[in-house]
Protein backbone atom coordinates (compact mmCIF):
# COMPACT_ATOMS: atom_id res chain seq x y z
CA UNK A 1 0.00 0.00 0.00
CA UNK A 2 1.32 3.38 -1.18
CA UNK A 3 3.59 5.65 0.85
CA UNK A 4 1.78 5.46 4.16
CA UNK A 5 3.76 5.27 7.37
CA UNK A 6 4.13 1.63 8.43
CA UNK A 7 1.64 1.95 11.30
CA UNK A 8 -0.92 3.58 8.99
CA UNK A 9 -0.31 0.98 6.28
CA UNK A 10 -0.96 -1.74 8.85
CA UNK A 11 -4.20 -0.09 9.93
CA UNK A 12 -5.24 0.44 6.30
CA UNK A 13 -4.66 -3.24 5.59
CA UNK A 14 -6.78 -4.28 8.57
CA UNK A 15 -9.83 -2.09 7.96
CA UNK A 16 -12.60 -4.14 6.30
CA UNK A 17 -14.13 -3.03 2.98
CA UNK A 18 -17.06 -0.63 2.91
CA UNK A 19 -17.22 0.23 6.62
CA UNK A 20 -17.69 3.63 8.28
CA UNK A 21 -14.42 5.00 9.62
CA UNK A 22 -13.55 7.96 11.83
CA UNK A 23 -9.89 8.98 11.67
CA UNK A 24 -9.00 11.14 14.66
CA UNK A 25 -5.96 13.31 14.04
CA UNK A 26 -6.20 12.52 10.34
CA UNK A 27 -3.64 15.11 9.18
CA UNK A 28 -3.96 15.80 5.47
CA UNK A 29 -6.14 12.71 5.09
CA UNK A 30 -3.57 10.33 3.57
CA UNK A 31 -5.00 7.29 5.36
CA UNK A 32 -8.60 8.34 4.68
CA UNK A 33 -7.88 8.77 0.97
CA UNK A 34 -6.24 5.34 0.86
CA UNK A 35 -9.20 3.74 2.62
CA UNK A 36 -11.74 5.52 0.47
CA UNK A 37 -10.21 4.60 -2.87
CA UNK A 38 -8.80 1.20 -1.88
CA UNK A 39 -11.60 -0.12 0.28
CA UNK A 40 -14.65 1.96 -0.51
CA UNK A 41 -15.05 2.99 3.10
CA UNK A 42 -17.08 5.99 4.25
CA UNK A 43 -14.30 7.94 5.97
CA UNK A 44 -14.57 10.99 8.22
CA UNK A 45 -11.73 12.83 9.94
CA UNK A 46 -10.97 15.21 12.78
CA UNK A 47 -7.83 17.34 12.62
CA UNK A 48 -6.77 20.29 14.74
CA UNK A 49 -4.35 21.97 12.28
CA UNK A 50 -6.30 24.20 9.84
CA UNK A 51 -3.70 23.88 7.08
CA UNK A 52 -3.92 20.09 7.20
CA UNK A 53 -7.73 20.29 7.18
CA UNK A 54 -7.64 22.55 4.13
CA UNK A 55 -5.46 20.00 2.29
CA UNK A 56 -7.80 17.16 3.25
CA UNK A 57 -10.93 19.05 2.21
CA UNK A 58 -9.26 20.12 -1.02
CA UNK A 59 -8.83 16.41 -1.87
CA UNK A 60 -12.55 15.92 -1.35
CA UNK A 61 -12.50 14.31 2.11
CA UNK A 62 -14.92 15.00 4.97
CA UNK A 63 -12.70 16.44 7.66
CA UNK A 64 -13.70 18.66 10.56
CA UNK A 65 -11.25 21.06 12.09
CA UNK A 66 -11.52 20.52 15.79
CA UNK A 67 -10.05 19.26 19.00
CA UNK A 68 -10.76 15.58 19.63
CA UNK A 69 -10.41 16.29 23.37
CA UNK A 70 -13.73 18.11 23.18
CA UNK A 71 -15.45 17.37 19.90
CA UNK A 72 -15.53 13.59 20.10
CA UNK A 73 -18.29 13.88 22.69
CA UNK A 74 -20.62 15.24 19.96
CA UNK A 75 -20.65 12.02 17.96
CA UNK A 76 -23.42 9.51 18.70
CA UNK A 77 -22.72 6.06 20.16
CA UNK A 78 -21.63 3.48 17.63
CA UNK A 79 -21.68 6.00 14.77
CA UNK A 80 -18.67 4.29 13.20
CA UNK A 81 -17.57 0.71 12.58
CA UNK A 82 -13.96 1.70 13.03
CA UNK A 83 -12.37 4.58 14.95
CA UNK A 84 -8.70 5.28 14.35
CA UNK A 85 -6.37 7.18 16.65
CA UNK A 86 -2.90 7.22 15.15
CA UNK A 87 -0.01 8.88 16.99
CA UNK A 88 -2.44 11.08 18.88
CA UNK A 89 -3.10 9.31 22.19
CA UNK A 90 0.08 10.68 23.75
CA UNK A 91 -0.94 14.25 22.82
CA UNK A 92 -4.39 14.03 24.43
CA UNK A 93 -5.37 15.97 27.53
CA UNK A 94 -6.84 12.80 29.00
CA UNK A 95 -5.83 9.72 27.01
CA UNK A 96 -8.10 7.54 29.18
CA UNK A 97 -11.14 9.72 28.31
CA UNK A 98 -10.17 9.69 24.66
CA UNK A 99 -9.94 5.91 24.72
CA UNK A 100 -13.42 5.67 26.23
CA UNK A 101 -14.77 7.99 23.52
CA UNK A 102 -13.01 6.03 20.81
CA UNK A 103 -14.71 2.80 21.88
CA UNK A 104 -18.02 4.60 22.32
CA UNK A 105 -18.24 6.09 18.82
CA UNK A 106 -16.55 3.11 17.13
CA UNK A 107 -17.28 -0.59 17.51
CA UNK A 108 -13.63 -1.34 16.76
CA UNK A 109 -10.72 0.99 17.44
CA UNK A 110 -7.18 1.14 16.10
CA UNK A 111 -4.69 2.96 18.29
CA UNK A 112 -1.07 3.58 17.37
CA UNK A 113 1.48 5.32 19.57
CA UNK A 114 5.22 5.69 20.09
CA UNK A 115 6.64 3.39 22.77
CA UNK A 116 8.60 5.32 25.38
CA UNK A 117 10.13 2.07 26.71
CA UNK A 118 11.97 1.35 23.45
CA UNK A 119 15.48 0.28 24.45
CA UNK A 120 17.23 3.31 22.95
CA UNK A 121 14.98 5.56 25.03
CA UNK A 122 15.74 3.61 28.15
CA UNK A 123 19.51 3.85 27.60
CA UNK A 124 19.39 7.49 26.62
CA UNK A 125 17.59 8.30 29.85
CA UNK A 126 19.66 5.94 31.99
CA UNK A 127 23.06 7.00 30.65
CA UNK A 128 22.39 10.59 29.53
CA UNK A 129 20.01 11.56 32.32
CA UNK A 130 18.08 13.73 29.86
CA UNK A 131 14.76 13.36 28.06
CA UNK A 132 15.69 11.33 24.98
CA UNK A 133 15.61 12.87 21.52
CA UNK A 134 15.62 9.92 19.17
CA UNK A 135 14.54 8.91 15.66
CA UNK A 136 10.93 8.13 16.48
CA UNK A 137 10.54 10.95 19.04
CA UNK A 138 12.71 13.65 17.52
CA UNK A 139 11.39 16.73 19.32
CA UNK A 140 12.89 18.04 22.56
CA UNK A 141 10.83 17.93 25.76
CA UNK A 142 9.83 21.59 25.72
CA UNK A 143 8.59 21.61 22.12
CA UNK A 144 6.94 18.22 21.81
CA UNK A 145 3.16 17.87 21.52
CA UNK A 146 3.49 14.57 23.36
CA UNK A 147 2.36 15.41 26.86
CA UNK A 148 1.47 11.89 27.98
CA UNK A 149 4.30 9.56 27.07
CA UNK A 150 3.46 5.91 27.51
CA UNK A 151 4.86 2.47 26.99
CA UNK A 152 3.38 -0.68 25.49
CA UNK A 153 3.09 -2.03 29.02
CA UNK A 154 1.33 1.12 30.31
CA UNK A 155 -1.19 0.85 27.52
CA UNK A 156 -1.90 -2.82 28.23
CA UNK A 157 -2.47 -2.00 31.91
CA UNK A 158 -4.92 0.77 31.04
CA UNK A 159 -6.81 -1.59 28.72
CA UNK A 160 -7.06 -4.24 31.44
CA UNK A 161 -8.27 -1.64 33.92
CA UNK A 162 -10.98 -0.54 31.49
CA UNK A 163 -11.95 -4.07 30.44
CA UNK A 164 -11.04 -3.38 26.82
CA UNK A 165 -10.38 -6.41 24.59
CA UNK A 166 -7.16 -6.48 22.60
CA UNK A 167 -8.11 -8.16 19.34
CA UNK A 168 -4.64 -7.88 17.85
CA UNK A 169 -1.43 -5.88 18.10
CA UNK A 170 1.53 -5.12 15.84
CA UNK A 171 4.94 -3.62 16.50
CA UNK A 172 7.39 -1.60 14.44
CA UNK A 173 11.05 -0.57 14.64
CA UNK A 174 13.26 1.04 12.04
CA UNK A 175 10.27 1.45 9.73
CA UNK A 176 9.60 -2.32 9.62
CA UNK A 177 7.23 -4.64 11.40
CA UNK A 178 8.82 -6.77 14.12
CA UNK A 179 7.43 -9.67 16.15
CA UNK A 180 5.60 -9.22 19.42
CA UNK A 181 8.24 -10.83 21.65
CA UNK A 182 9.70 -8.33 24.14
CA UNK A 183 7.85 -5.62 22.27
CA UNK A 184 8.09 -3.20 25.18
CA UNK A 185 11.88 -3.26 24.69
CA UNK A 186 12.10 -3.61 20.94
CA UNK A 187 9.24 -1.59 19.48
CA UNK A 188 9.40 2.08 18.48
CA UNK A 189 5.73 2.07 17.57
CA UNK A 190 2.77 -0.12 18.44
CA UNK A 191 -0.63 -0.59 16.79
CA UNK A 192 -3.52 -2.12 18.72
CA UNK A 193 -6.91 -3.28 17.50
CA UNK A 194 -9.40 -2.95 20.34
CA UNK A 195 -13.03 -3.60 21.10
CA UNK A 196 -15.17 -3.17 24.18
Amino acid sequence: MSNLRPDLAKIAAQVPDGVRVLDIGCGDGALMAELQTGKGVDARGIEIDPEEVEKAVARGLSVVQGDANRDLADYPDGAFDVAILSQTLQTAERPDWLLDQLLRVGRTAFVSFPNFAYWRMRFALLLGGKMPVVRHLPVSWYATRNIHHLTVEDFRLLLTEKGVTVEDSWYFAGGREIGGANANWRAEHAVFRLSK
Partner: protein
Amino acid sequence: MAPNTAPSFRKKALPDPLPLDSGRELAGVEIAFETYGELNVDRSNAILVFHALTGDQFVASEHPVTGKQGWWERMVGPGKPIDTARYYVICANVLGSCMGSTGPASPDADGKPYAKQFPVITIRDMVRAQMRLLDVLGIETLHAVVGGSMGGMQALSCAANFPERTNRVLAIATTARHSAQNIAFHEVGRQAIMADPDWQGGAYYGSNTPDKGLSVARMAAHITYLSEAGLTEKFGRRLQDRDEKSFGFDADFQVESYLRHQGISFTDRFDANSYLYITRAMDYFDLAEEHGGRLANAFRAASDTRFCLVSFDTDWLYTTADMREIVHALNAVAAPVSFVELSAPYGHDSFLLDVPALDRVVKGFIG
Protein backbone atom coordinates in the same frame (compact mmCIF):
# COMPACT_ATOMS: atom_id res chain seq x y z
CA MET B 1 -33.76 54.35 -7.64
CA ALA B 2 -33.34 50.86 -8.97
CA PRO B 3 -37.00 49.88 -9.42
CA ASN B 4 -37.67 52.73 -11.87
CA THR B 5 -34.47 52.66 -13.84
CA ALA B 6 -33.79 48.92 -13.77
CA PRO B 7 -33.36 47.12 -17.07
CA SER B 8 -35.42 44.07 -17.95
CA PHE B 9 -34.40 40.96 -16.05
CA ARG B 10 -34.43 37.32 -17.07
CA LYS B 11 -37.20 35.84 -14.92
CA LYS B 12 -39.82 33.10 -14.53
CA ALA B 13 -43.31 33.35 -13.06
CA LEU B 14 -44.12 30.69 -10.47
CA PRO B 15 -47.29 28.90 -11.61
CA ASP B 16 -48.93 28.62 -8.16
CA PRO B 17 -49.29 30.97 -5.19
CA LEU B 18 -46.31 30.65 -2.83
CA PRO B 19 -47.18 29.61 0.75
CA LEU B 20 -45.28 31.67 3.31
CA ASP B 21 -44.15 30.91 6.87
CA SER B 22 -46.35 33.79 8.08
CA GLY B 23 -49.42 31.83 6.99
CA ARG B 24 -50.11 34.15 4.11
CA GLU B 25 -49.55 33.23 0.50
CA LEU B 26 -48.21 35.28 -2.35
CA ALA B 27 -49.70 34.97 -5.83
CA GLY B 28 -48.01 35.93 -9.06
CA VAL B 29 -44.47 35.55 -7.77
CA GLU B 30 -41.72 36.15 -10.30
CA ILE B 31 -38.14 35.09 -9.68
CA ALA B 32 -35.31 36.72 -11.62
CA PHE B 33 -32.19 34.64 -12.16
CA GLU B 34 -29.03 34.25 -14.18
CA THR B 35 -27.36 31.04 -15.33
CA TYR B 36 -23.81 30.23 -16.33
CA GLY B 37 -22.56 27.13 -18.17
CA GLU B 38 -24.66 24.39 -19.75
CA LEU B 39 -27.13 22.01 -18.15
CA ASN B 40 -26.07 18.45 -19.04
CA VAL B 41 -28.39 15.87 -20.61
CA ASP B 42 -29.32 14.10 -17.38
CA ARG B 43 -29.77 17.45 -15.61
CA SER B 44 -27.37 16.47 -12.84
CA ASN B 45 -24.75 19.23 -12.99
CA ALA B 46 -26.69 22.19 -11.62
CA ILE B 47 -25.35 24.25 -8.73
CA LEU B 48 -27.55 26.83 -7.04
CA VAL B 49 -25.67 29.80 -5.61
CA PHE B 50 -27.59 31.77 -2.96
CA HIS B 51 -26.71 35.44 -2.65
CA ALA B 52 -26.26 37.52 0.50
CA LEU B 53 -28.41 40.34 1.92
CA THR B 54 -27.62 42.98 -0.67
CA GLY B 55 -26.38 40.62 -3.37
CA ASP B 56 -28.18 39.65 -6.54
CA GLN B 57 -28.27 37.10 -9.34
CA PHE B 58 -25.29 38.64 -11.16
CA VAL B 59 -22.79 36.33 -9.54
CA ALA B 60 -20.45 36.14 -12.52
CA SER B 61 -21.66 38.74 -14.97
CA GLU B 62 -21.82 42.50 -15.14
CA HIS B 63 -24.32 44.20 -12.84
CA PRO B 64 -26.84 46.00 -15.10
CA VAL B 65 -27.18 49.01 -12.76
CA THR B 66 -23.65 49.59 -11.49
CA GLY B 67 -21.75 48.14 -14.45
CA LYS B 68 -19.47 46.37 -11.99
CA GLN B 69 -18.35 42.80 -12.54
CA GLY B 70 -20.17 39.92 -10.86
CA TRP B 71 -19.91 39.73 -7.09
CA TRP B 72 -18.23 36.31 -7.06
CA GLU B 73 -16.33 36.22 -10.34
CA ARG B 74 -13.25 35.04 -8.51
CA MET B 75 -15.17 31.88 -7.55
CA VAL B 76 -17.59 31.21 -10.43
CA GLY B 77 -16.59 30.93 -14.09
CA PRO B 78 -14.75 28.73 -16.57
CA GLY B 79 -11.79 27.12 -14.79
CA LYS B 80 -12.74 28.78 -11.50
CA PRO B 81 -13.33 26.78 -8.28
CA ILE B 82 -17.03 26.54 -9.24
CA ASP B 83 -16.25 25.69 -12.82
CA THR B 84 -18.92 26.74 -15.31
CA ALA B 85 -17.21 24.62 -17.95
CA ARG B 86 -18.45 21.61 -15.94
CA TYR B 87 -21.39 22.89 -13.94
CA TYR B 88 -24.58 24.75 -14.71
CA VAL B 89 -24.65 27.53 -12.15
CA ILE B 90 -27.95 29.19 -11.27
CA CYS B 91 -28.26 32.27 -9.09
CA ALA B 92 -31.67 33.76 -8.35
CA ASN B 93 -32.57 37.12 -6.88
CA VAL B 94 -34.21 36.35 -3.51
CA LEU B 95 -37.88 36.90 -2.85
CA GLY B 96 -38.29 40.37 -1.34
CA SER B 97 -35.30 41.85 -3.15
CA CYS B 98 -35.29 44.43 -5.91
CA MET B 99 -33.42 43.07 -8.91
CA GLY B 100 -36.37 41.60 -10.76
CA SER B 101 -37.82 39.15 -8.24
CA THR B 102 -41.10 39.91 -6.52
CA GLY B 103 -40.57 42.27 -3.58
CA PRO B 104 -42.07 45.30 -1.88
CA ALA B 105 -41.49 47.43 -4.99
CA SER B 106 -43.48 45.01 -7.17
CA PRO B 107 -47.09 45.79 -8.11
CA ASP B 108 -49.83 44.41 -5.91
CA ALA B 109 -53.11 43.12 -7.42
CA ASP B 110 -54.28 46.73 -7.75
CA GLY B 111 -51.21 47.62 -9.79
CA LYS B 112 -49.57 49.79 -7.14
CA PRO B 113 -46.33 48.76 -5.40
CA TYR B 114 -46.87 46.54 -2.37
CA ALA B 115 -44.65 48.76 -0.18
CA LYS B 116 -45.51 47.88 3.43
CA GLN B 117 -48.36 45.62 2.31
CA PHE B 118 -45.76 43.12 1.19
CA PRO B 119 -45.89 40.10 3.53
CA VAL B 120 -43.01 39.57 5.96
CA ILE B 121 -40.94 36.73 4.56
CA THR B 122 -38.41 34.28 5.98
CA ILE B 123 -35.22 32.65 4.78
CA ARG B 124 -37.26 29.46 4.26
CA ASP B 125 -39.72 31.39 2.07
CA MET B 126 -36.79 32.58 -0.08
CA VAL B 127 -35.57 29.01 -0.42
CA ARG B 128 -39.07 27.70 -1.15
CA ALA B 129 -39.42 30.23 -3.98
CA GLN B 130 -36.10 29.12 -5.45
CA MET B 131 -37.09 25.45 -5.25
CA ARG B 132 -40.23 26.38 -7.22
CA LEU B 133 -37.99 28.10 -9.74
CA LEU B 134 -36.03 24.84 -10.07
CA ASP B 135 -39.34 23.05 -10.70
CA VAL B 136 -40.07 25.49 -13.50
CA LEU B 137 -36.57 24.95 -14.90
CA GLY B 138 -37.05 21.17 -14.70
CA ILE B 139 -34.17 20.58 -12.27
CA GLU B 140 -34.94 18.02 -9.59
CA THR B 141 -31.64 17.44 -7.83
CA LEU B 142 -28.74 19.85 -7.52
CA HIS B 143 -25.10 18.87 -7.47
CA ALA B 144 -24.66 21.49 -4.75
CA VAL B 145 -26.09 24.54 -3.08
CA VAL B 146 -23.56 27.21 -2.18
CA GLY B 147 -23.80 30.43 -0.22
CA GLY B 148 -21.99 32.86 2.03
CA SER B 149 -23.55 34.95 4.82
CA MET B 150 -27.33 35.08 4.16
CA GLY B 151 -26.59 32.79 1.21
CA GLY B 152 -25.23 30.29 3.72
CA MET B 153 -28.43 30.57 5.76
CA GLN B 154 -30.40 29.68 2.63
CA ALA B 155 -28.04 26.77 1.95
CA LEU B 156 -28.59 25.41 5.48
CA SER B 157 -32.33 26.02 5.24
CA CYS B 158 -32.38 24.16 1.93
CA ALA B 159 -30.62 21.19 3.55
CA ALA B 160 -33.06 21.21 6.45
CA ASN B 161 -36.29 21.71 4.51
CA PHE B 162 -35.57 20.32 1.05
CA PRO B 163 -32.86 17.70 1.73
CA GLU B 164 -33.83 15.68 -1.35
CA ARG B 165 -33.02 18.60 -3.65
CA THR B 166 -29.25 18.70 -3.20
CA ASN B 167 -26.29 16.34 -2.81
CA ARG B 168 -23.92 18.90 -1.33
CA VAL B 169 -24.21 21.95 0.87
CA LEU B 170 -21.43 24.55 1.05
CA ALA B 171 -22.11 27.22 3.68
CA ILE B 172 -19.54 29.95 4.23
CA ALA B 173 -19.32 32.62 6.96
CA THR B 174 -22.84 32.03 8.17
CA THR B 175 -24.93 30.99 11.15
CA ALA B 176 -27.90 28.81 12.02
CA ARG B 177 -29.45 31.58 14.08
CA HIS B 178 -29.32 35.36 14.23
CA SER B 179 -27.94 36.45 17.58
CA ALA B 180 -29.11 39.39 19.69
CA GLN B 181 -26.11 41.34 18.41
CA ASN B 182 -26.93 40.51 14.78
CA ILE B 183 -30.55 41.60 15.30
CA ALA B 184 -29.40 44.76 17.08
CA PHE B 185 -27.25 45.92 14.16
CA HIS B 186 -30.09 45.27 11.75
CA GLU B 187 -32.48 47.21 13.93
CA VAL B 188 -30.17 50.24 13.78
CA GLY B 189 -30.35 50.07 10.02
CA ARG B 190 -34.11 49.68 9.89
CA GLN B 191 -34.65 52.55 12.29
CA ALA B 192 -32.39 54.76 10.17
CA ILE B 193 -34.54 54.02 7.10
CA MET B 194 -37.85 54.50 8.89
CA ALA B 195 -36.64 57.73 10.53
CA ASP B 196 -35.99 59.25 7.12
CA PRO B 197 -39.01 61.51 6.29
CA ASP B 198 -38.74 60.34 2.70
CA TRP B 199 -39.60 56.83 3.78
CA GLN B 200 -43.23 57.97 4.04
CA GLY B 201 -44.41 54.84 5.80
CA GLY B 202 -42.92 52.81 2.98
CA ALA B 203 -45.10 54.39 0.27
CA TYR B 204 -42.31 56.39 -1.36
CA TYR B 205 -42.44 54.81 -4.81
CA GLY B 206 -42.79 57.47 -7.47
CA SER B 207 -41.50 60.21 -5.18
CA ASN B 208 -38.40 60.96 -3.09
CA THR B 209 -36.76 57.81 -1.80
CA PRO B 210 -35.30 57.45 1.73
CA ASP B 211 -31.70 57.53 0.51
CA LYS B 212 -30.32 59.13 3.66
CA GLY B 213 -31.79 56.45 5.88
CA LEU B 214 -30.78 53.61 3.59
CA SER B 215 -27.31 55.07 3.34
CA VAL B 216 -26.89 55.14 7.13
CA ALA B 217 -28.23 51.58 7.33
CA ARG B 218 -25.61 50.48 4.85
CA MET B 219 -22.84 52.33 6.69
CA ALA B 220 -23.69 50.65 10.00
CA ALA B 221 -23.93 47.23 8.38
CA HIS B 222 -20.72 47.73 6.41
CA ILE B 223 -18.74 48.12 9.62
CA THR B 224 -19.88 44.65 10.69
CA TYR B 225 -18.54 43.17 7.46
CA LEU B 226 -14.97 44.31 8.13
CA SER B 227 -12.46 43.46 10.81
CA GLU B 228 -11.05 46.08 13.13
CA ALA B 229 -7.55 45.20 11.98
CA GLY B 230 -8.69 45.57 8.37
CA LEU B 231 -10.15 49.01 8.99
CA THR B 232 -7.06 50.09 10.90
CA GLU B 233 -4.77 48.89 8.15
CA LYS B 234 -6.85 50.46 5.38
CA PHE B 235 -7.57 53.82 7.01
CA GLY B 236 -6.04 54.12 10.45
CA ARG B 237 -6.68 57.67 11.65
CA ARG B 238 -5.61 59.16 8.33
CA LEU B 239 -7.35 62.35 7.23
CA GLN B 240 -9.24 62.72 3.97
CA ASP B 241 -7.84 65.28 1.48
CA ARG B 242 -6.64 67.61 4.23
CA ASP B 243 -3.67 68.09 6.48
CA GLU B 244 -5.48 69.07 9.66
CA LYS B 245 -8.73 68.34 11.41
CA SER B 246 -11.45 70.78 10.35
CA PHE B 247 -13.05 71.18 13.77
CA GLY B 248 -16.34 70.50 12.05
CA PHE B 249 -18.43 67.55 10.95
CA ASP B 250 -17.20 67.01 7.42
CA ALA B 251 -15.65 63.69 6.63
CA ASP B 252 -12.27 64.53 8.17
CA PHE B 253 -11.21 60.92 8.40
CA GLN B 254 -10.71 58.60 5.46
CA VAL B 255 -12.85 55.98 7.13
CA GLU B 256 -15.76 58.44 7.27
CA SER B 257 -15.39 59.32 3.63
CA TYR B 258 -15.21 55.64 2.72
CA LEU B 259 -18.35 54.77 4.67
CA ARG B 260 -20.28 57.72 3.24
CA HIS B 261 -19.35 56.59 -0.23
CA GLN B 262 -20.42 53.02 0.56
CA GLY B 263 -23.74 54.29 1.87
CA ILE B 264 -24.55 56.66 -0.98
CA SER B 265 -23.56 54.32 -3.80
CA PHE B 266 -25.69 51.61 -2.22
CA THR B 267 -28.83 53.70 -2.64
CA ASP B 268 -28.31 53.68 -6.41
CA ARG B 269 -28.89 49.97 -6.59
CA PHE B 270 -31.06 48.97 -3.64
CA ASP B 271 -34.61 49.52 -2.50
CA ALA B 272 -35.03 50.64 1.12
CA ASN B 273 -38.12 48.51 1.70
CA SER B 274 -36.31 45.45 0.36
CA TYR B 275 -33.63 46.18 2.94
CA LEU B 276 -36.26 46.21 5.70
CA TYR B 277 -37.85 42.96 4.57
CA ILE B 278 -34.66 41.02 3.98
CA THR B 279 -33.01 42.04 7.26
CA ARG B 280 -36.23 40.99 9.01
CA ALA B 281 -36.05 37.59 7.34
CA MET B 282 -32.48 37.18 8.59
CA ASP B 283 -33.45 38.20 12.12
CA TYR B 284 -36.26 35.64 12.16
CA PHE B 285 -33.85 32.92 11.08
CA ASP B 286 -33.37 30.25 13.74
CA LEU B 287 -33.01 26.81 12.23
CA ALA B 288 -33.25 25.03 15.58
CA GLU B 289 -36.45 26.87 16.52
CA GLU B 290 -38.02 25.72 13.26
CA HIS B 291 -37.22 22.12 14.24
CA GLY B 292 -38.36 21.69 17.80
CA GLY B 293 -35.56 23.68 19.42
CA ARG B 294 -32.80 21.23 18.56
CA LEU B 295 -30.49 22.06 15.67
CA ALA B 296 -29.60 18.40 15.04
CA ASN B 297 -33.28 17.73 14.30
CA ALA B 298 -33.08 20.19 11.42
CA PHE B 299 -30.59 17.91 9.68
CA ARG B 300 -32.14 14.50 10.42
CA ALA B 301 -33.32 14.06 6.84
CA ALA B 302 -30.05 15.38 5.44
CA SER B 303 -27.68 12.84 6.98
CA ASP B 304 -26.68 11.60 3.49
CA THR B 305 -25.99 15.12 2.23
CA ARG B 306 -22.35 16.18 2.14
CA PHE B 307 -21.68 19.41 4.01
CA CYS B 308 -18.75 21.79 3.96
CA LEU B 309 -18.67 24.72 6.35
CA VAL B 310 -16.06 27.46 6.30
CA SER B 311 -15.53 30.27 8.80
CA PHE B 312 -12.95 33.04 8.96
CA ASP B 313 -10.90 33.87 12.02
CA THR B 314 -11.53 37.64 11.72
CA ASP B 315 -15.30 37.36 11.11
CA TRP B 316 -17.04 38.71 14.22
CA LEU B 317 -20.49 38.88 12.59
CA TYR B 318 -20.90 35.11 12.12
CA THR B 319 -18.15 33.55 14.15
CA THR B 320 -16.31 30.25 14.15
CA ALA B 321 -18.21 29.41 17.35
CA ASP B 322 -21.52 29.92 15.50
CA MET B 323 -20.39 27.59 12.75
CA ARG B 324 -19.09 24.97 15.19
CA GLU B 325 -22.62 24.68 16.57
CA ILE B 326 -23.75 23.65 13.10
CA VAL B 327 -20.87 21.19 12.83
CA HIS B 328 -21.82 19.64 16.17
CA ALA B 329 -25.44 19.27 15.04
CA LEU B 330 -24.31 17.61 11.82
CA ASN B 331 -22.01 15.27 13.74
CA ALA B 332 -24.91 14.32 15.96
CA VAL B 333 -26.79 12.99 12.92
CA ALA B 334 -23.53 11.54 11.52
CA ALA B 335 -23.78 13.60 8.33
CA PRO B 336 -20.57 13.75 6.28
CA VAL B 337 -19.27 17.18 7.15
CA SER B 338 -16.10 19.15 6.58
CA PHE B 339 -15.33 22.26 8.53
CA VAL B 340 -12.39 24.61 8.48
CA GLU B 341 -11.68 28.01 9.98
CA LEU B 342 -9.55 29.87 7.48
CA SER B 343 -7.23 32.70 8.36
CA ALA B 344 -7.99 35.89 6.43
CA PRO B 345 -7.67 39.56 7.39
CA TYR B 346 -10.90 40.92 5.91
CA GLY B 347 -13.52 40.00 8.51
CA HIS B 348 -16.93 38.76 7.34
CA ASP B 349 -16.29 39.98 3.78
CA SER B 350 -13.44 37.46 3.48
CA PHE B 351 -15.75 35.10 1.63
CA LEU B 352 -15.96 37.57 -1.26
CA LEU B 353 -12.29 38.53 -1.34
CA ASP B 354 -8.91 37.15 -2.24
CA VAL B 355 -8.49 34.13 0.05
CA PRO B 356 -6.72 31.42 -1.98
CA ALA B 357 -7.31 28.80 0.73
CA LEU B 358 -11.06 29.28 0.25
CA ASP B 359 -10.68 28.67 -3.49
CA ARG B 360 -8.92 25.37 -2.79
CA VAL B 361 -11.52 24.25 -0.26
CA VAL B 362 -14.44 25.16 -2.56
CA LYS B 363 -12.85 23.45 -5.56
CA GLY B 364 -12.08 20.30 -3.55
CA PHE B 365 -15.55 20.11 -2.09
CA ILE B 366 -17.50 20.83 -5.28
CA GLY B 367 -15.34 18.32 -7.16
